[in-house]
Protein backbone atom coordinates (compact mmCIF):
# COMPACT_ATOMS: atom_id res chain seq x y z
CA UNK A 1 0.00 0.00 0.00
CA UNK A 2 0.74 3.41 1.07
CA UNK A 3 3.00 5.92 -0.53
CA UNK A 4 4.24 8.45 2.00
CA UNK A 5 5.84 11.84 1.71
CA UNK A 6 7.16 14.26 4.30
CA UNK A 7 5.79 17.76 3.96
CA UNK A 8 8.21 20.38 5.23
CA UNK A 9 6.64 23.17 7.21
CA UNK A 10 6.67 26.72 5.96
CA UNK A 11 7.43 29.65 8.25
CA UNK A 12 3.99 29.86 9.76
CA UNK A 13 4.23 26.42 11.38
CA UNK A 14 1.94 23.41 11.20
CA UNK A 15 -1.43 25.14 10.90
CA UNK A 16 -0.23 27.53 8.20
CA UNK A 17 1.39 24.69 6.25
CA UNK A 18 -1.77 22.62 6.36
CA UNK A 19 -3.74 25.66 5.20
CA UNK A 20 -1.37 26.07 2.31
CA UNK A 21 -1.62 22.36 1.44
CA UNK A 22 -5.40 22.57 1.11
CA UNK A 23 -5.14 25.96 -0.58
CA UNK A 24 -3.02 24.44 -3.33
CA UNK A 25 -5.43 21.52 -3.70
CA UNK A 26 -8.19 24.04 -4.38
CA UNK A 27 -6.05 26.26 -6.61
CA UNK A 28 -4.90 23.35 -8.74
CA UNK A 29 -8.48 22.20 -9.11
CA UNK A 30 -7.76 18.81 -7.54
CA UNK A 31 -10.90 19.27 -5.48
CA UNK A 32 -13.83 21.65 -5.81
CA UNK A 33 -14.24 22.15 -2.08
CA UNK A 34 -12.63 21.27 1.22
CA UNK A 35 -14.53 20.49 4.39
CA UNK A 36 -12.29 20.77 7.43
CA UNK A 37 -12.40 21.82 11.08
CA UNK A 38 -11.89 25.54 11.16
CA UNK A 39 -12.07 28.40 13.62
CA UNK A 40 -15.09 30.44 12.65
CA UNK A 41 -13.52 33.67 13.92
CA UNK A 42 -10.12 34.32 15.53
CA UNK A 43 -11.43 33.89 19.07
CA UNK A 44 -14.20 31.49 18.18
CA UNK A 45 -14.83 27.80 18.43
CA UNK A 46 -13.94 25.13 15.92
CA UNK A 47 -16.47 23.59 13.57
CA UNK A 48 -16.41 21.71 10.28
CA UNK A 49 -16.51 24.30 7.48
CA UNK A 50 -16.99 23.85 3.75
CA UNK A 51 -14.52 26.03 1.84
CA UNK A 52 -14.39 26.74 -1.89
CA UNK A 53 -12.35 29.96 -1.87
CA UNK A 54 -8.60 29.26 -1.50
CA UNK A 55 -8.19 32.63 0.21
CA UNK A 56 -10.50 31.54 3.02
CA UNK A 57 -8.37 28.62 4.17
CA UNK A 58 -6.34 30.42 6.85
CA UNK A 59 -8.24 29.52 9.98
CA UNK A 60 -8.09 25.79 9.42
CA UNK A 61 -7.48 24.02 12.75
CA UNK A 62 -7.42 20.28 12.14
CA UNK A 63 -5.93 19.19 15.43
CA UNK A 64 -7.90 21.37 17.83
CA UNK A 65 -8.93 19.11 20.72
CA UNK A 66 -12.53 20.00 20.06
CA UNK A 67 -14.97 17.39 18.77
CA UNK A 68 -18.38 19.06 18.78
CA UNK A 69 -19.96 16.47 16.47
CA UNK A 70 -19.10 13.37 14.51
CA UNK A 71 -18.76 14.73 10.97
CA UNK A 72 -19.77 11.44 9.33
CA UNK A 73 -23.32 12.78 9.27
CA UNK A 74 -22.19 15.91 7.44
CA UNK A 75 -20.26 13.81 4.95
CA UNK A 76 -23.36 11.73 4.39
CA UNK A 77 -25.24 14.94 3.58
CA UNK A 78 -22.52 15.97 1.14
CA UNK A 79 -22.21 12.64 -0.60
CA UNK A 80 -25.62 11.02 -0.88
CA UNK A 81 -25.95 12.43 -4.40
CA UNK A 82 -23.21 13.54 -6.84
CA UNK A 83 -22.28 17.21 -6.56
CA UNK A 84 -20.56 17.41 -9.90
CA UNK A 85 -17.19 17.86 -8.25
CA UNK A 86 -14.85 16.26 -5.77
CA UNK A 87 -14.92 17.33 -2.14
CA UNK A 88 -12.02 16.74 0.22
CA UNK A 89 -13.28 16.00 3.73
CA UNK A 90 -10.89 16.12 6.66
CA UNK A 91 -11.94 13.61 9.28
CA UNK A 92 -10.82 11.96 12.48
CA UNK A 93 -10.44 8.16 12.31
CA UNK A 94 -13.74 7.57 14.14
CA UNK A 95 -15.51 9.87 11.70
CA UNK A 96 -14.14 7.88 8.77
CA UNK A 97 -15.23 4.62 10.38
CA UNK A 98 -18.72 6.00 11.00
CA UNK A 99 -18.90 7.15 7.40
CA UNK A 100 -17.91 3.68 6.19
CA UNK A 101 -20.86 2.29 8.16
CA UNK A 102 -23.20 4.91 6.70
CA UNK A 103 -22.06 4.12 3.16
CA UNK A 104 -22.84 0.45 3.74
CA UNK A 105 -26.26 1.45 5.06
CA UNK A 106 -26.81 3.43 1.82
CA UNK A 107 -26.67 6.79 3.58
CA UNK A 108 -23.76 8.23 1.65
CA UNK A 109 -21.01 7.46 -0.79
CA UNK A 110 -17.26 7.75 -1.18
CA UNK A 111 -17.31 8.18 -4.94
CA UNK A 112 -16.87 11.93 -5.17
CA UNK A 113 -14.88 12.36 -2.00
CA UNK A 114 -11.24 12.61 -1.14
CA UNK A 115 -11.22 11.37 2.44
CA UNK A 116 -8.36 13.02 4.31
CA UNK A 117 -7.75 11.30 7.63
CA UNK A 118 -5.71 12.76 10.45
CA UNK A 119 -3.63 11.06 13.11
CA UNK A 120 -5.96 11.87 15.96
CA UNK A 121 -4.45 13.35 19.11
CA UNK A 122 -7.89 13.16 20.76
CA UNK A 123 -10.22 15.82 22.07
CA UNK A 124 -11.78 17.07 25.28
CA UNK A 125 -15.47 16.76 25.81
CA UNK A 126 -17.36 19.87 24.79
CA UNK A 127 -17.70 21.37 28.25
CA UNK A 128 -14.01 20.86 29.07
CA UNK A 129 -12.83 22.28 25.76
CA UNK A 130 -14.81 25.42 26.45
CA UNK A 131 -13.18 25.77 29.85
CA UNK A 132 -9.64 24.99 28.87
CA UNK A 133 -9.42 26.88 25.59
CA UNK A 134 -11.61 29.84 26.43
CA UNK A 135 -8.95 32.52 26.38
CA UNK A 136 -6.56 31.78 23.59
CA UNK A 137 -8.20 29.34 21.26
CA UNK A 138 -6.01 30.21 18.29
CA UNK A 139 -2.73 29.33 19.92
CA UNK A 140 -4.17 26.61 22.08
CA UNK A 141 -3.98 23.85 19.48
CA UNK A 142 -0.18 24.18 19.13
CA UNK A 143 0.32 24.09 22.88
CA UNK A 144 -1.98 21.11 23.14
CA UNK A 145 -0.31 19.21 20.31
CA UNK A 146 3.20 19.51 21.65
CA UNK A 147 1.99 18.46 25.10
CA UNK A 148 -0.01 15.49 23.92
CA UNK A 149 2.68 14.27 21.54
CA UNK A 150 5.24 14.35 24.32
CA UNK A 151 3.02 11.99 26.26
CA UNK A 152 1.21 14.48 28.49
CA UNK A 153 -2.16 13.13 29.67
CA UNK A 154 -3.23 15.76 32.17
CA UNK A 155 -3.82 19.35 31.12
CA UNK A 156 -4.72 22.62 32.81
CA UNK A 157 -6.76 22.18 36.00
CA UNK A 158 -6.15 18.45 35.81
CA UNK A 159 -8.48 18.07 32.83
CA UNK A 160 -8.03 15.01 30.66
CA UNK A 161 -9.08 14.05 27.16
CA UNK A 162 -12.60 12.66 26.85
CA UNK A 163 -13.00 9.07 28.01
CA UNK A 164 -13.86 7.99 24.46
CA UNK A 165 -10.55 9.37 23.21
CA UNK A 166 -8.54 7.83 26.02
CA UNK A 167 -10.16 4.46 25.25
CA UNK A 168 -9.75 4.78 21.47
CA UNK A 169 -7.67 2.06 19.84
CA UNK A 170 -7.92 3.56 16.36
CA UNK A 171 -5.88 6.78 16.58
CA UNK A 172 -4.54 6.36 13.04
CA UNK A 173 -6.87 6.79 10.06
CA UNK A 174 -7.81 3.68 8.18
CA UNK A 175 -9.71 3.79 4.92
CA UNK A 176 -8.68 7.35 4.05
CA UNK A 177 -7.45 8.37 0.61
CA UNK A 178 -4.90 10.75 2.08
CA UNK A 179 -3.61 10.62 5.63
CA UNK A 180 -1.93 13.35 7.64
CA UNK A 181 0.50 11.84 10.13
CA UNK A 182 1.84 13.47 13.27
CA UNK A 183 2.66 10.49 15.50
CA UNK A 184 6.39 9.85 15.59
CA UNK A 185 7.01 12.88 13.40
CA UNK A 186 8.93 16.01 14.35
CA UNK A 187 5.99 18.37 13.87
CA UNK A 188 8.09 21.45 14.40
CA UNK A 189 9.63 20.71 11.04
CA UNK A 190 7.28 18.53 9.05
CA UNK A 191 4.24 16.28 8.90
CA UNK A 192 3.64 13.03 7.06
CA UNK A 193 1.35 12.79 4.06
CA UNK A 194 0.26 9.30 3.13
CA UNK A 195 -1.67 8.00 0.13
CA UNK A 196 -3.67 4.90 0.90
CA UNK A 197 -5.61 4.64 -2.36
CA UNK A 198 -5.16 5.43 -6.03
CA UNK A 199 -7.14 8.62 -5.56
CA UNK A 200 -4.76 9.57 -2.78
CA UNK A 201 -1.71 8.82 -4.87
CA UNK A 202 -3.12 11.07 -7.59
CA UNK A 203 -3.27 13.93 -5.09
CA UNK A 204 0.29 13.35 -3.86
CA UNK A 205 1.60 13.17 -7.42
CA UNK A 206 -0.26 16.32 -8.45
CA UNK A 207 1.16 18.20 -5.47
CA UNK A 208 4.61 17.21 -6.69
CA UNK A 209 5.66 15.67 -3.39
CA UNK A 210 8.55 13.25 -3.51
CA UNK A 211 8.06 9.90 -1.87
CA UNK A 212 9.85 9.49 1.44
CA UNK A 213 9.61 6.70 3.96
CA UNK A 214 7.98 7.46 7.30
CA UNK A 215 10.51 7.77 10.13
CA UNK A 216 11.31 4.40 11.73
CA UNK A 217 10.11 5.39 15.17
CA UNK A 218 6.57 6.10 13.93
CA UNK A 219 5.33 2.51 14.10
CA UNK A 220 6.67 2.06 17.62
CA UNK A 221 5.07 5.31 18.79
CA UNK A 222 1.70 4.25 17.40
CA UNK A 223 1.98 0.74 18.79
CA UNK A 224 2.69 1.96 22.30
CA UNK A 225 -0.12 4.52 22.11
CA UNK A 226 -2.59 1.81 21.11
CA UNK A 227 -1.35 -0.52 23.85
CA UNK A 228 -1.92 2.16 26.50
CA UNK A 229 -5.36 2.90 25.12
CA UNK A 230 -6.29 -0.76 25.00
CA UNK A 231 -5.41 -1.25 28.66
CA UNK A 232 -7.48 1.80 29.58
CA UNK A 233 -10.37 0.58 27.45
CA UNK A 234 -10.42 -2.89 28.93
CA UNK A 235 -10.41 -1.47 32.45
CA UNK A 236 -13.26 0.81 31.42
CA UNK A 237 -15.26 -2.14 30.06
CA UNK A 238 -14.70 -4.03 33.28
CA UNK A 239 -15.77 -1.12 35.49
CA UNK A 240 -18.83 -0.47 33.33
CA UNK A 241 -19.82 -4.11 33.34
CA UNK A 242 -19.61 -4.09 37.12
CA UNK A 243 -22.01 -1.13 37.20
CA UNK A 244 -24.58 -2.57 34.78
CA UNK A 245 -24.63 -6.33 35.15
CA UNK A 246 -28.19 -6.62 36.44
CA UNK A 247 -31.34 -5.00 35.06
CA UNK A 248 -31.67 -3.03 38.28
CA UNK A 249 -28.11 -1.71 38.09
CA UNK A 250 -28.63 -0.83 34.44
CA UNK A 251 -31.76 1.11 35.38
CA UNK A 252 -29.78 2.95 38.05
CA UNK A 253 -27.00 3.69 35.58
CA UNK A 254 -29.58 5.27 33.26
CA UNK A 255 -31.67 6.83 36.00
CA UNK A 256 -30.74 10.39 35.02
CA UNK A 257 -32.11 9.88 31.50
CA UNK A 258 -34.90 12.30 30.62
CA UNK A 259 -35.71 10.76 27.21
CA UNK A 260 -34.38 13.79 25.37
CA UNK A 261 -32.85 11.49 22.75
CA UNK A 262 -29.86 13.80 22.31
CA UNK A 263 -27.62 10.72 22.26
CA UNK A 264 -29.50 9.40 19.29
CA UNK A 265 -29.30 12.74 17.49
CA UNK A 266 -25.56 12.96 18.15
CA UNK A 267 -24.94 9.35 17.16
CA UNK A 268 -23.38 9.24 13.69
CA UNK A 269 -24.73 5.79 12.84
CA UNK A 270 -28.29 6.09 14.24
CA UNK A 271 -29.60 7.03 10.84
CA UNK A 272 -33.39 6.45 10.77
CA UNK A 273 -35.26 9.49 9.49
CA UNK A 274 -37.95 8.88 12.06
CA UNK A 275 -37.01 7.08 15.24
CA UNK A 276 -39.66 4.63 16.41
CA UNK A 277 -39.45 6.16 19.89
CA UNK A 278 -40.99 9.42 18.63
CA UNK A 279 -43.76 7.74 16.65
CA UNK A 280 -47.32 6.95 17.73
CA UNK A 281 -46.10 3.58 19.01
CA UNK A 282 -44.84 5.40 22.10
CA UNK A 283 -47.52 8.05 22.24
CA UNK A 284 -49.32 6.16 24.99
CA UNK A 285 -52.84 6.98 26.10
CA UNK A 286 -53.03 8.46 29.59
CA UNK A 287 -54.88 5.43 31.00
CA UNK A 288 -52.01 3.21 29.81
CA UNK A 289 -49.63 4.83 32.30
CA UNK A 290 -52.11 4.23 35.08
CA UNK A 291 -52.52 0.60 34.06
CA UNK A 292 -48.78 0.08 34.18
CA UNK A 293 -48.52 1.83 37.51
CA UNK A 294 -51.35 -0.27 38.95
CA UNK A 295 -49.79 -3.50 37.81
CA UNK A 296 -46.36 -2.76 39.27
CA UNK A 297 -47.37 -0.46 42.10
CA UNK A 298 -45.20 2.28 40.64
CA UNK A 299 -43.53 3.19 37.37
CA UNK A 300 -40.75 5.58 36.60
CA UNK A 301 -41.84 8.63 34.60
CA UNK A 302 -40.79 9.24 31.90
CA UNK A 303 -41.31 5.64 30.83
CA UNK A 304 -39.55 3.52 28.21
CA UNK A 305 -36.08 4.71 29.17
CA UNK A 306 -34.20 1.44 29.62
CA UNK A 307 -36.30 0.12 26.74
CA UNK A 308 -35.03 2.94 24.53
CA UNK A 309 -31.40 2.38 25.38
CA UNK A 310 -31.47 -1.42 24.97
CA UNK A 311 -33.31 -1.00 21.67
CA UNK A 312 -30.63 1.38 20.51
CA UNK A 313 -28.07 -1.27 21.40
CA UNK A 314 -29.98 -3.72 19.22
CA UNK A 315 -30.23 -1.24 16.38
CA UNK A 316 -26.75 0.19 16.18
CA UNK A 317 -24.30 -1.65 18.40
CA UNK A 318 -22.95 -3.51 15.38
CA UNK A 319 -22.20 -0.14 13.77
CA UNK A 320 -20.97 1.75 16.87
CA UNK A 321 -17.52 3.27 16.37
CA UNK A 322 -17.18 4.40 20.01
CA UNK A 323 -16.70 8.06 19.07
CA UNK A 324 -18.26 9.15 22.35
CA UNK A 325 -20.67 11.74 20.98
CA UNK A 326 -23.53 10.14 22.93
CA UNK A 327 -21.78 11.02 26.18
CA UNK A 328 -20.92 14.45 24.82
CA UNK A 329 -24.57 15.14 24.03
CA UNK A 330 -26.06 13.92 27.29
CA UNK A 331 -27.37 16.86 29.36
CA UNK A 332 -27.19 14.78 32.52
CA UNK A 333 -23.71 13.36 32.11
CA UNK A 334 -24.69 9.72 31.83
CA UNK A 335 -21.64 7.73 30.78
CA UNK A 336 -23.29 6.41 27.63
CA UNK A 337 -20.15 5.89 25.59
CA UNK A 338 -18.82 3.44 28.19
CA UNK A 339 -22.05 1.44 28.08
CA UNK A 340 -22.43 1.53 24.31
CA UNK A 341 -18.85 0.73 23.45
CA UNK A 342 -18.82 -2.15 25.94
CA UNK A 343 -21.95 -3.64 24.39
CA UNK A 344 -20.81 -2.89 20.86
CA UNK A 345 -17.49 -4.60 21.51
CA UNK A 346 -19.38 -7.77 22.43
CA UNK A 347 -21.89 -7.71 19.58
CA UNK A 348 -19.26 -6.96 16.98
CA UNK A 349 -17.15 -9.83 18.30
CA UNK A 350 -20.20 -12.12 18.18
CA UNK A 351 -20.50 -11.51 14.45
CA UNK A 352 -16.76 -11.30 13.82
CA UNK A 353 -17.38 -7.76 12.62
CA UNK A 354 -15.69 -4.46 13.32
CA UNK A 355 -17.53 -1.24 12.60
CA UNK A 356 -15.73 0.84 10.00
CA UNK A 357 -13.12 -1.79 9.21
CA UNK A 358 -14.02 -2.17 5.57
CA UNK A 359 -16.54 -1.22 2.95
CA UNK A 360 -16.91 -4.84 1.90
CA UNK A 361 -17.81 -6.55 5.20
CA UNK A 362 -21.60 -6.73 5.25
CA UNK A 363 -23.32 -5.24 8.31
CA UNK A 364 -24.26 -8.33 10.37
CA UNK A 365 -27.99 -7.68 10.47
CA UNK A 366 -28.22 -7.02 6.73
CA UNK A 367 -27.27 -10.51 5.63
CA UNK A 368 -27.65 -14.15 6.61
CA UNK A 369 -26.25 -17.50 5.60
CA UNK A 370 -28.00 -20.81 5.35
CA UNK A 371 -25.61 -22.69 7.57
CA UNK A 372 -24.49 -20.60 10.49
CA UNK A 373 -25.09 -19.77 14.15
CA UNK A 374 -25.99 -23.32 15.12
CA UNK A 375 -25.34 -22.33 18.75
CA UNK A 376 -28.34 -19.99 18.73
CA UNK A 377 -30.89 -22.67 17.94
CA UNK A 378 -32.15 -25.13 20.49
CA UNK A 379 -32.32 -28.55 18.84
CA UNK A 380 -34.57 -31.16 20.40
CA UNK A 381 -34.77 -34.92 19.92
Amino acid sequence: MAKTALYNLTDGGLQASLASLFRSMLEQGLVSAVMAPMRLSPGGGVMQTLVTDPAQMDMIDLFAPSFPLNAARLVSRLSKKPTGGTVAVVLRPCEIRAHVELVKLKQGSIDDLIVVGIDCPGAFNNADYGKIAADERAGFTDTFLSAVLSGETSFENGLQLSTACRACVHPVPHGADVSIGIFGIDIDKQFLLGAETEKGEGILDALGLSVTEAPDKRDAVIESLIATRETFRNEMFEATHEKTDTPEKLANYLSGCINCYNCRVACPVCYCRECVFVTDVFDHDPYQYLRWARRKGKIRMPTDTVFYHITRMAHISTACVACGQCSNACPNDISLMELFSMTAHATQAAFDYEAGRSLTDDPPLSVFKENELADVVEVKH
Partner: protein
Amino acid sequence: MDEGFEPTIIAFVCNWCTYTAADLAGTSRLSYPSNVRLIRVMCTGMVDPKYIIKAFLEGTDAVLVSGCHPGDCHYINGNYKARRRMKLLKTILPQYGFDEKRIKLTWIGASDGIQFAQTIRDMVVEIKALGPNEAKQAAVV
Protein backbone atom coordinates in the same frame (compact mmCIF):
# COMPACT_ATOMS: atom_id res chain seq x y z
CA MET B 1 -36.34 -21.05 45.20
CA ASP B 2 -40.00 -20.15 45.54
CA GLU B 3 -41.93 -23.43 45.32
CA GLY B 4 -45.02 -21.79 43.95
CA PHE B 5 -43.21 -19.97 41.15
CA GLU B 6 -45.06 -20.32 37.86
CA PRO B 7 -43.06 -18.76 35.06
CA THR B 8 -44.61 -16.79 32.25
CA ILE B 9 -43.28 -17.62 28.83
CA ILE B 10 -44.05 -15.44 25.84
CA ALA B 11 -43.81 -17.46 22.63
CA PHE B 12 -43.70 -15.83 19.22
CA VAL B 13 -44.71 -18.62 16.86
CA CYS B 14 -44.97 -18.46 13.10
CA ASN B 15 -48.29 -19.00 11.44
CA TRP B 16 -47.06 -21.66 9.05
CA CYS B 17 -45.05 -24.01 11.23
CA THR B 18 -44.98 -23.69 15.00
CA TYR B 19 -48.46 -22.22 15.40
CA THR B 20 -49.81 -25.04 13.27
CA ALA B 21 -47.84 -27.47 15.42
CA ALA B 22 -49.40 -25.94 18.54
CA ASP B 23 -52.80 -26.32 16.92
CA LEU B 24 -52.02 -29.92 16.14
CA ALA B 25 -50.93 -30.51 19.73
CA GLY B 26 -54.31 -29.15 20.80
CA THR B 27 -56.41 -31.17 18.39
CA SER B 28 -54.37 -34.25 19.30
CA ARG B 29 -55.29 -33.57 22.95
CA LEU B 30 -51.67 -33.41 24.02
CA SER B 31 -51.28 -31.53 27.26
CA TYR B 32 -48.64 -28.95 28.01
CA PRO B 33 -48.33 -26.36 30.78
CA SER B 34 -50.43 -23.22 30.54
CA ASN B 35 -47.43 -21.03 31.40
CA VAL B 36 -46.92 -20.21 27.76
CA ARG B 37 -48.65 -17.29 26.04
CA LEU B 38 -48.65 -17.84 22.32
CA ILE B 39 -48.42 -14.86 20.01
CA ARG B 40 -49.01 -15.84 16.43
CA VAL B 41 -46.91 -13.93 13.92
CA MET B 42 -46.82 -14.49 10.19
CA CYS B 43 -43.09 -15.27 10.28
CA THR B 44 -40.29 -15.34 12.85
CA GLY B 45 -38.60 -12.85 10.52
CA MET B 46 -41.09 -10.21 11.67
CA VAL B 47 -40.27 -10.56 15.36
CA ASP B 48 -38.75 -7.18 16.08
CA PRO B 49 -36.06 -7.29 18.81
CA LYS B 50 -38.15 -4.60 20.53
CA TYR B 51 -40.93 -7.11 21.18
CA ILE B 52 -38.51 -9.33 23.05
CA ILE B 53 -36.81 -6.52 24.96
CA LYS B 54 -40.21 -5.14 25.98
CA ALA B 55 -41.40 -8.57 27.09
CA PHE B 56 -38.40 -8.92 29.40
CA LEU B 57 -38.74 -5.41 30.80
CA GLU B 58 -42.41 -6.12 31.49
CA GLY B 59 -41.41 -9.17 33.48
CA THR B 60 -41.75 -12.26 31.30
CA ASP B 61 -39.56 -15.08 32.55
CA ALA B 62 -38.62 -16.35 29.11
CA VAL B 63 -39.22 -15.69 25.44
CA LEU B 64 -39.51 -18.42 22.86
CA VAL B 65 -39.28 -17.65 19.17
CA SER B 66 -40.17 -20.63 17.06
CA GLY B 67 -40.62 -21.06 13.34
CA CYS B 68 -40.05 -23.25 10.35
CA HIS B 69 -36.98 -25.40 9.90
CA PRO B 70 -34.22 -23.91 7.72
CA GLY B 71 -35.25 -24.24 4.10
CA ASP B 72 -38.95 -24.49 5.01
CA CYS B 73 -39.73 -20.82 5.62
CA HIS B 74 -42.95 -19.81 3.91
CA TYR B 75 -41.24 -16.55 3.02
CA ILE B 76 -38.01 -18.26 1.92
CA ASN B 77 -35.62 -16.76 4.50
CA GLY B 78 -37.44 -15.07 7.39
CA ASN B 79 -36.19 -17.67 9.86
CA TYR B 80 -32.55 -16.98 8.91
CA LYS B 81 -33.09 -13.30 9.71
CA ALA B 82 -34.69 -14.24 13.01
CA ARG B 83 -31.67 -16.38 13.83
CA ARG B 84 -29.31 -13.39 13.38
CA ARG B 85 -31.52 -11.19 15.57
CA MET B 86 -31.63 -13.85 18.26
CA LYS B 87 -27.85 -14.04 18.19
CA LEU B 88 -27.79 -10.27 18.69
CA LEU B 89 -30.18 -10.40 21.65
CA LYS B 90 -28.40 -13.37 23.18
CA THR B 91 -25.27 -11.22 23.12
CA ILE B 92 -26.81 -7.99 24.42
CA LEU B 93 -29.29 -9.03 27.11
CA PRO B 94 -27.01 -11.32 29.17
CA GLN B 95 -24.61 -8.40 29.62
CA TYR B 96 -27.29 -6.73 31.69
CA GLY B 97 -27.97 -9.81 33.75
CA PHE B 98 -30.78 -11.49 31.82
CA ASP B 99 -29.91 -15.17 31.75
CA GLU B 100 -29.26 -16.34 28.20
CA LYS B 101 -31.39 -19.46 28.85
CA ARG B 102 -34.44 -17.20 28.93
CA ILE B 103 -34.03 -16.39 25.23
CA LYS B 104 -34.82 -19.38 23.04
CA LEU B 105 -35.09 -20.06 19.36
CA THR B 106 -36.38 -23.38 18.03
CA TRP B 107 -37.57 -24.77 14.73
CA ILE B 108 -40.80 -26.75 15.06
CA GLY B 109 -42.50 -27.83 11.83
CA ALA B 110 -46.26 -27.93 11.25
CA SER B 111 -46.48 -31.67 11.82
CA ASP B 112 -44.44 -31.63 15.06
CA GLY B 113 -47.27 -31.30 17.58
CA ILE B 114 -45.59 -33.75 19.94
CA GLN B 115 -42.34 -31.84 19.76
CA PHE B 116 -44.11 -28.55 20.45
CA ALA B 117 -45.73 -29.88 23.61
CA GLN B 118 -42.43 -31.38 24.76
CA THR B 119 -40.53 -28.15 24.08
CA ILE B 120 -42.93 -26.19 26.27
CA ARG B 121 -42.79 -28.80 29.05
CA ASP B 122 -38.99 -28.79 29.02
CA MET B 123 -38.84 -25.04 28.94
CA VAL B 124 -41.16 -24.62 31.92
CA VAL B 125 -39.02 -27.03 33.95
CA GLU B 126 -35.86 -25.18 32.96
CA ILE B 127 -37.26 -21.72 33.73
CA LYS B 128 -38.75 -22.88 37.03
CA ALA B 129 -35.28 -23.98 38.05
CA LEU B 130 -33.85 -20.66 36.91
CA GLY B 131 -36.32 -18.56 38.93
CA PRO B 132 -38.08 -15.29 38.07
CA ASN B 133 -36.84 -12.81 35.50
CA GLU B 134 -34.03 -10.70 36.92
CA ALA B 135 -35.91 -7.46 36.12
CA LYS B 136 -39.14 -8.45 37.82
CA GLN B 137 -38.48 -6.88 41.17
CA ALA B 138 -36.94 -3.69 39.88
CA ALA B 139 -38.89 -0.75 38.54
CA VAL B 140 -37.23 -1.09 35.17
CA VAL B 141 -38.97 0.45 32.18
